[in-house]
Structures are given as structure tokens and as C-alpha cells.
């Protein structure tokens, strides 16, 4: 009897998805759908939070007051994105603290791009232009994702990310049009970030274990390779416009397909970084763990105070 019910529930669920009706927190959903979303949304939330670190690394060294203010505003937006995304995860029955513990234990992942170091001021531009640019490519389709709370959160996140992408490009443009030292700083930064940015779209379609199911559930709308191609097509002309050279000897516009052909991604490096062996994996996770441990007394105090206050009110 129960078996039949589940089959029927699954049929209705897929029917909703096929008709583009949003799934809401209280609706029935297959356990794997719930788990896939928890994994994906929390990974996204962690990326926002960990993403504060490379930028925080430069906020105290920003070159002028305007750039300092803009960078602060951007970091604040990112923490805000983390907050709505953790809230979206909570609508699926997951607990924010548990989700964060999974980040600290290494069970949960975050975007591997943040395991690369931010070494120069140009990196602040490059992170905005390339990293947020790539994030937008991934995220705009998520505004139509089948899960309502995630889709709605993404509408706001994308608006802000698009602003970040433009301010990043503005930083890079300023450098590219500046002194020879500034231009060299921009080029050196592009040389380091280009390939990791392409890796942000995840493994090639043939190696992506989650893509097919996620597309059926309309959590995902395009494959990793489609999005990566779109990113290359949009970004290469932007680099050319400001006189920077994309570090790929095989990059060439293909008249027949109307797309850029590009070189092979170093997948060994990708998998190594995902597995925790990138230049900054240890520092990033350690920084987040430390924030949690050092903040423990604050959270305990806030809870103790809230309890005392509730008791005083009651008596």
C-alpha cells in the first residue's frame, strides 16, 4: 500500500516539475530531491561565506577610500547571500549549525575557486569580473529552479552579483588603462585566475555525476559545459576590449560554431583542489573553524541572556 502511495506521490511531484510549478517547503518531495538541494544550496552558502576571506584579505589594504567602501559593501552583500541561502537550507529541514559543521569537517564543499590566493589588488578586480561573472552564469538559470525558496533567493543574489561583476571589471579596466606596472598587475592576475574561473563550472558533462538527475528535477537548467562555453564567449571579448590577453594558446573564435574553441582544462588540478589540496584549502577552513570556536562564548552568552530575559518576563 505504502509503495503505491510513494509511486503516486513521485508521479505527481514530477508532473508539477514538468509543468513548471514551484515546489514549496511543505510540499511532498522525494528524499533525494531534498538531499540534492541541501547539498547544493549549502555548498552555495558556504561559497559566499568562504568567499569573504580572500576579499577580507584586501579590504584593509584597499588603495583608496572609494574602493575600500565598495569592497566592504560587496563583502557585506556576500554575507547577506550566505544568510538567505542558509535560511533556504533550513526550509528543507536542515540545521544551519550542522550545515556549517559539515563545512568545517570537510564533508561539505564550497566553490573551489576560493582555494586560490588573493595576492594583489588586481585580484579584487579579477574576483569580481571572473568569479562573480562565472557565478552569474551558474545562478541566473537558478532563478527558475524548481524549488521556490531557492529560486526566489537567487533573484536577489543575481542582481547583486551582477553589480559585483561590473565593479570588478571596472577595477580591472582602471588597471589595464593605467601605468605599465598596473597593466602588468592586471595581466598577471588574469593569468592566475583564468583557468580556475573556468573550473568553477564543475567537471566536464561526461564526468558530472549529478547533472542528469538535477536537470530532470529542474534544479539545474544547463549542463556544466554549456555554461562554461557561454562564459568564455562573453568574457574573451571583454578581455580584448581592455587589452588583456587570455592565457590560452588554443583560444580561437570558431566561425562555423559561432563560439570560441579553448584549450584543455587541467582536471588533475581541479580534482586535487576539490579534494582539499589547493593552495589555500587549509587556511580557508581553518579560518572558518576559528571564527566558530572563538565565537562560541558569544553565542552561549547570547542564548543564556535570552533565557534569563524570558524567565524574568514570565515571573
Amino acid at each position: 500500500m505504502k509503495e503505491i502511495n510513494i509511486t503516486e506521490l513521485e508521479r505527481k511531484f514530477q508532473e508539477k516539475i514538468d509543468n513548471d510549478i514551484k515546489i514549496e517547503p511543505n510540499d511532498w518531495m522525494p528524499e533525494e530531491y531534498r538531499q540534492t538541494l541541501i547539498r547544493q544550496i549549502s555548498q552555495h552558502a558556504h561559497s559566499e561565506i568562504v568567499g569573504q576571506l580572500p576579499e577580507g584579505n584586501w579590504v584593509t589594504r584597499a588603495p583608496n577610500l572609494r574602493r575600500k567602501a565598495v569592497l566592504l559593501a560587496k563583502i557585506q552583500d556576500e554575507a547577506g547571500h550566505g544568510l538567505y541561502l542558509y535560511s533556504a537550507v533550513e526550509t528543507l529541514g536542515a540545521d544551519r549549525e550542522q550545515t556549517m559543521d559539515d563545512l568545517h569537517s570537510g564533508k561539505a564543499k564550497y566553490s573551489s575557486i576560493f582555494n586560490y590566493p588573493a595576492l594583489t589588488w588586481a585580484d579584487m578586480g579579477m574576483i569580481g569580473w571572473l568569479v562573480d561573472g562565472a557565478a552569474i552564469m551558474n545562478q541566473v538559470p537558478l532563478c527558475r529552479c524548481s524549488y521556490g525558496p531557492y529560486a526566489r533567493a537567487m533573484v536577489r543574489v543575481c542582481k547583486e552579483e551582477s553589480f559585483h561583476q561590473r565593479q570588478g571589471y571596472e577595477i580591472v579596466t582602471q588597471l589595464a588603462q593605467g601605468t605599465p606596472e598596473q597593466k602588468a598587475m592586471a595581466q598577471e592576475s588574469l593569468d592566475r585566475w583564468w583557468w580556475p574561473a573556468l573550473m568553477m563550472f564543475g567537471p566536464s558533462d561526461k564526468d558530472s555525476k549529478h547533472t542528469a538527475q538535477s536537470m530532470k528535477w529542474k534544479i539545474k537548467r544547463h549542463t556544466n559545459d554549456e555554461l562554461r562555453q557561454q562564459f568564455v564567449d562573453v568574457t574573451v571579448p571583454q578581455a580584448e576590449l581592455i587589452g588583456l590577453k587570455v592565457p590560452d594558446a588554443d583560444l580561437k573564435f570558431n566561425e562555423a560554431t559561432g563560439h570560441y574553441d579553448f584549450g584543455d582544462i587541467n582536471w588533475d588540478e581541479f580534482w586535487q583542489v576539490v579534494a582539499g589540496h589547493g593552495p589555500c584549502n587549509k587556511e580557508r577552513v581553518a579560518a572558518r573553524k576559528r571564527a566558530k570556536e572563538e565565537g562560541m562564548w558569544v553565542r552561549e552568552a547570547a542564548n543564556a541572556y535570552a533565557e534569563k530575559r524570558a524567565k524574568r518576563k514570565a515571573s
Partner: protein
Amino acid sequence: MTKEEALFTYLLRRADDTLILGHRLSEWCGHGPILEEDIALTNLSLDLIGQCTSYFQYAAQIEGKGRTEDDLAFLRIEKDYVNCLMVEQPNGDFGKTITRQFFYDVYHKLLLEALVNSKDEQLSAIAEKSLKEVKYHLRHSSEWMIRLGDGTEESHERMQNAVDDISRFIDELFYKDQVDEMLIKEGIIPDSADFRAAYDAYVTEVLEEATLQLPEKMWQLSGGRKGVHSEHLGYLLAELQYMQRTYPNMEW
């Protein structure tokens, strides 16, 4: 000293306080005890950096030597920074950051409330805009003082230590010299002595609710307004000025 020179110095004191405190808060980015506080501390920092920009712009205009707000913020030597010592104190734990913020916010709000009435229109306008932000800063820091002071045994102890430490810098907030005297006479700035009682009353009220105590009158440190700082400021400036010093005369 002309009125313009006095005003220039006064504006730098306001600008440096907000720049240095904003800088300290920005050091928290990504390391706060909870996500909501990562957002709040960054927001406070952003407000203060915005306020310092207004003061520096006005100071540059008053000085009239072609320097910009960034020249003033990034290209002075340490002894030319005239912020008070309180704001340059290192962040310590979250409790110390909040305590430093609280003691400064109480002063900052009272000052701005009075500065709104300045005969100098520009200064009055900056004060009015800043006041809206600082009222919120004070609410935030006061609530945390109470929560942490009256939280657990550990939090209480940490907060009492922070109060003992930071309260050594309170009197300097009310420091006055001929710069202030001249501008007070002109009706450009308020006499901070007029709101010292209100400062003490507010601090006492919040600390009482937080079950914390101001220590017995401690030796008060000062020197910031004259450019004599703690050892901490040099490191902060080394970081703040890094780009401008390493790559001089460039646009960013």
C-alpha cells in the same frame, strides 16, 4: 592659528577617528562569531568609512592646497594622524571590539547631536547624515554590552576585562585644546564638556543593566589628538597605506 587652520585640524580629528575605527572593524570581515555579526560589523565599518570620506573631502577643501581626501587618508606620516587612542586599540575578542565600539558610540552620538547645530553648514550636514547611522551603531553596541555582560560567567568576565581596558581612554574623548576653544567660540563645534554628564549617565545605565562596573578611576591615557599614538597605530597604517606607498601617484 586661523579659524580655517583650526577647522582643518578639527575635521582631521573627526576623519581620523572614523577612518581608524572603520579600518579596525573591517579586520573582522569573514571572522565574526555569527553571520549576522559579520554583516553588522561590516556595515558599521562601511558607515564609518563613508563618514571619514565626507570629513576628509571637506578638510581638503578647507586646506585649499590641492590635496584630495585620499591624500589625507593615506599619505600622512603617523604623527600627523590625530585620532583618539581608543579607536586604534586592537580588536581583541568580539567583546573587546564591542566595548570599544560602545564607549566610542556613546560619545559619537552625543557629539553629532550637538554638531548638527554647528554654524558651519557643511559640518552640520555631515553630522546630520552621520547621526542617523550612529544612532543605530549605539543601539547595536549597547544591546551587545548587556547581552554579553549579563550572559554567562565567562562572557561577564571577558566583558569586565574589556571595560577595565578600554575605560582608560575615555577622558581623551573629551580632550580640548586651542583648536576646540577657537571653534567653540565661533559656534562651529559644541563644547564637549556640556555632554560629559550625559555620557557618564548613559554609560552607567547600560553597564548597570549589563551587570558590569566601571573600574575605580584609572590613570587616563591620551596623546592621540597631538599625534602621539600607541604602538598599534603604526602597523595599522602600514597596512592601510601599503598600496599608496608602494605604487605612488597612480589612479585606482
